[in-house]
């Protein structure tokens, strides 16, 4: 493994941070403002992409920015794990930007400049999380995400939005300050460093009890992963405009959370240490509990976005669950699911937003026959839903497959039943929507009160992105090579094979 020193990871982060300023400056000219968003998105994606060949060849790209104080360094490292996340997030940002433009212009949202600024800022921070070379850098960007997304959640400035946003920030900021920071302090004082090292930095530094406490603090402190019982901020954050929910609450924010969990598990503690402490199993059962419970709750939700939110909670725990298996296939499944869930879930949210914009429907029970009015949207929705359930030939199947393999490798046979049960539950909350959309008779009126006949799709700016992401979800089944290779590099490095 070679280390290449290059500022590319930092430039990837900077590109959208610069865009924040440019967006702010061009607040009077919406088209120019939107151009900056798209330009930054494309630039960011290209920069990330340019690092891909090196990372696929097994190298890592490092850049050290500055040392804040002795032991506290802001440094970046693009490795396989970070690449997985960064590629997904930066690609989906471009798609979401188009969708956002379509959405905010059709719904005439206020304060669009603030909206796009916050969006770009959050994306910078998400890439920062992806490429952080140590826990301190990661923590900085973790917090920046929280602050940047607050305006998005509070966007509507209604009482409901503000109270949702308040819960959002109390949960995310509160737990990260109380638990995660505590864990970071303890880690630093034990290990003397916060660097991410494959195989962990904590092995042999403290008593079993101390290490267990640190692990619990970390898991309780990374609330963005939405593990129960710290999940209720996520449904509350659904008051945000739909594109924001789509990218941030299905991709950037929550994925930053699970990504942090994976980083802590693999690069702070290490597979061997967690096996020795038996904490992997504990985490696995916690995640399993969340998977099942959130799915059951999701079945009962009538509000489409809330149902998607609970589905997210459950799907995020798949990622945590898979990495907690601490077996090679489990880790592969976990890494892949970060990508695959992103494509599937963003499609679903996009579809929900398109339905809202065109027909002002927010409830599942109002969607009868909508498949005929919005064929593209609902076909994309179906693909996304099938991917979530894990039906071949969609991406979701691949990650589920690896999870099953991982469970068998780790010899946790009862857990396989849990996986099967959760798949059934996934089907139970997604398929009724698909069924209603295509096989039930329409019984609703359109905006003007008349009965909908014929096709009434959302604006093209919204439909094209959601079709694209659904094709992505499909493509991930047939061509997961790049991501699979990246996942293999991760596995090789953390299990000592590389």
């Amino acid at each position, binding site marked *: 493994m070679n280390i290449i020193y290059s500022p590319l990871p930092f430039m990837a982060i900077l590109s959208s941070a610069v865009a924040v300023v440019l967006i702010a400056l061009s607040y009077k000219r919406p088209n120019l403002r939107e151009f900056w968003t798209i330009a930054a998105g494309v630039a960011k994606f290209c920069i990330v992409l340019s690092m891909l060949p090196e990372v696929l060849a097994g190298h890592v790209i490092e850049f050290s920015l500055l040392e804040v*104080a*002795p032991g506290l360094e802001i440094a970046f490292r693009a490795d396989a794990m970070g690449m997985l996340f960064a590629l997904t997030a930066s690609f989906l940002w471009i798609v979401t930007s188009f969708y956002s433009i379509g959405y905010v212009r059709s719904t005439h949202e206020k304060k669009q400049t603030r909206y796009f600024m916050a969006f770009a800022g959050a994306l910078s921070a998400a890439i920062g999380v992806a490429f952080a070379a140590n826990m301190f850098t990661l923590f900085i960007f973790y*917090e920046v995400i929280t602050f940047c997304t607050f305006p998005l959640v*509070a966007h509507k400035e209604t009482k409901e939005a*503000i109270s949702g946003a308040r819960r959002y920030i109390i949960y995310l*900021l509160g737990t990260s*300050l109380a638990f995660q920071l505590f864990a970071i*302090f303890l880690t630093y004082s034990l290990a003397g460093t916060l660097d991410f090292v494959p195989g962990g930095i904590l092995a042999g530094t403290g008593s079993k009890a101390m290490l267990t406490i640190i692990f619990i603090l970390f898991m309780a402190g990374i609330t963005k992963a939405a593990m129960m019982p710290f999940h209720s901020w996520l449904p509350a954050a659904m008051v945000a405009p739909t594109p924001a929910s789509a990218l941030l609450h299905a991709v950037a924010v929550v994925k930053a959370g699970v990504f942090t969990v994976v980083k802590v598990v693999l690069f702070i503690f290490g597979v061997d240490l967690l096996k020795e402490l038996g904490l992997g199993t504990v985490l696995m059962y916690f995640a399993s509990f969340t998977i099942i419970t959130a799915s059951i709750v999701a079945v009962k939700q009538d509000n489409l976005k809330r149902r998607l939110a609970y589905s997210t909670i459950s799907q995020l725990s798949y990622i945590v669950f898979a990495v907690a298996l601490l077996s090679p296939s489990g880790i592969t499944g976990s890494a892949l699911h970060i990508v695959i869930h992103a494509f599937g879930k963003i499609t679903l949210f996009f579809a929900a937003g398109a339905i809202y914009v065109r027909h002002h429907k927010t409830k599942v029970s109002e969607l009868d026959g909508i498949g005929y009015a919005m064929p593209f949207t609902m076909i994309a929705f179906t693909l996304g839903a099938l991917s979530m359930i894990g039906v071949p030939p969609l991406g979701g199947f691949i990650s589920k497959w690896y999870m099953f393999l991982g469970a068998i490798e780790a010899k946790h046979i009862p857990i396989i039943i849990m996986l099967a049960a959760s798949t059934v539950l996934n089907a139970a909350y997604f398929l009724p929507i698909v069924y209603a959309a295509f096989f039930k008779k329409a019984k609703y009126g359109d905006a003007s009160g008349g009965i909908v006949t014929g096709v009434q799709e959302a604006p093209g700016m919204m439909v094209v992105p959601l079709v694209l992401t659904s094709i992505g979800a499909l493509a991930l089944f047939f061509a997961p090579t790049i991501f699979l290779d990246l996942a293999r590099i991760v596995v090789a490095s953390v299990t000592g094979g590389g």
Partner: protein
Amino acid sequence: MTLTEHLPILIIILPLFAAVIMPLTGVVNRSLCWYFTVVVTFLVFLIALSLVCNVMEAGRISYWLGGWKPPWGIEYVVDKVSALVLLVVSFIAFAVAIYARRSVEKEIAKSKVPLFYSVYLLFITGSMGVTITGDIFNLYVFLEITSLSLYTLIAMGPKRRALIASFNYLILGTIAGTFVLIGVGYLYMVTGTLNMADLRVLLPELYGSSAVLTAFAFFTVGLSLKLALFPLHIWLPNAYSYAPSVVSAVVAATATKVSAYVLFRILFTVFTVEFDTSVVPVTYLLIFFSSVAIIMGSVIALSQTNIKRMLAYSSIGQIGYIVLGAALTNELALTGSIIHIFNHALMKGSLFLVVGIVVYKTGIDDISGFKGLGRKMPISMAAFTLGALSMIGAPLTVGFVSKWYLAIGAINAGMWFLVPVILVSSILTAVYFWRVVEKIYFHKADEVEEIVTEYEVDGAGCACKRFEAPLTMLIPTFVLSVLCILFGIAANIPAGIASSAAKMLLGGGG
């Protein structure tokens, strides 16, 4: 002898003489006073800066007043700790002096303006003297100069309650001063010397003596009262909230810090670490009280509706941090404590200055008055947000650096249970500041505009929606808040000075 050798005395003499001349200047032309103050504070800042440079290069500077050799004469000592405090105090004094012009015009009667600047400079003199002196009686004298000028400054507040606040502070401050004086007296009684370095040499033999113990007790309690450590804090909220805005800012940023510095001097320079931890385990007491201060300060701040009072209670919590770091007596924690003197001055200074701007512009000092100001005063409110983030301790702000050192220091001292205290207070801080930030950016303003036009004296630009403060107020405020971020990122610079200062204090240097 060249001028540079006399810098340690010039930093005292200059503001002292200027303070005396000030009322005369006022007779000539009242508006000259402000220019005069700015020039003097700027010079003081320059002197402090050059002293810091000298100290970093050449080490400890000892200046013999009138050429009398210590321990007989008064000695002025500039070492890394005092240099840092000198720099902080003079910088804040300079920044606030620039800011003062418009705020003072509005809040203080015209005839009293020269008087105000005169007392302001006296206050600077006192603070500088306390920091630089190496003689404990001289220290008492300067401490009293600082306090007396503060009573006056607070009494100049626009509301009548300012008089009561000032009077309360006067009584408690005098008790504190007397306690310090008694401490000085006892030490002089048993050792026959007033020089700090000399005391350090002579005292260890007498550690068993009850006179020394009594002196130590008086010092600790007296200084705790001066620096408003939790149960002895009652003078502070009223003093801060009824004082003129300028005074609130300068007091919050410097006065309690200087008292904390004196406590460090007594704990580590006059007495030794061994004395504090084993002979009289005062450090445990201080750890306990400062932890309570950290939590209670934040809890009480939560329930405040007046922004100045909220900041005042927040200060009580922050003073807890400073004392806690010192009481842990290890290098990292003490570094955190010293750096927090610097950091807290920056953040509290900028926050109080923003409040001053809001009061200047709208006349409201209630939290609800911040509604919707994000649109109208974007720069001031950005400064407030940066200050608030620092107070919360968000990473890349100065607040995080302090907390990092304190927490790691606490863990290294084997007291990891103190970390939750720090973290819980961070969360509470987040709650009470976020409340304000939310009002600034996510609530609509109600009727503020009407009041604004009433208060708008210069008549310029009141038709437009934005009503930023005049530049003389805006620039110092914004500079302070930007420094909060700058030194949060480039923390190596202050942390380097603070950590060698901590090493020196613990290692027994004078």
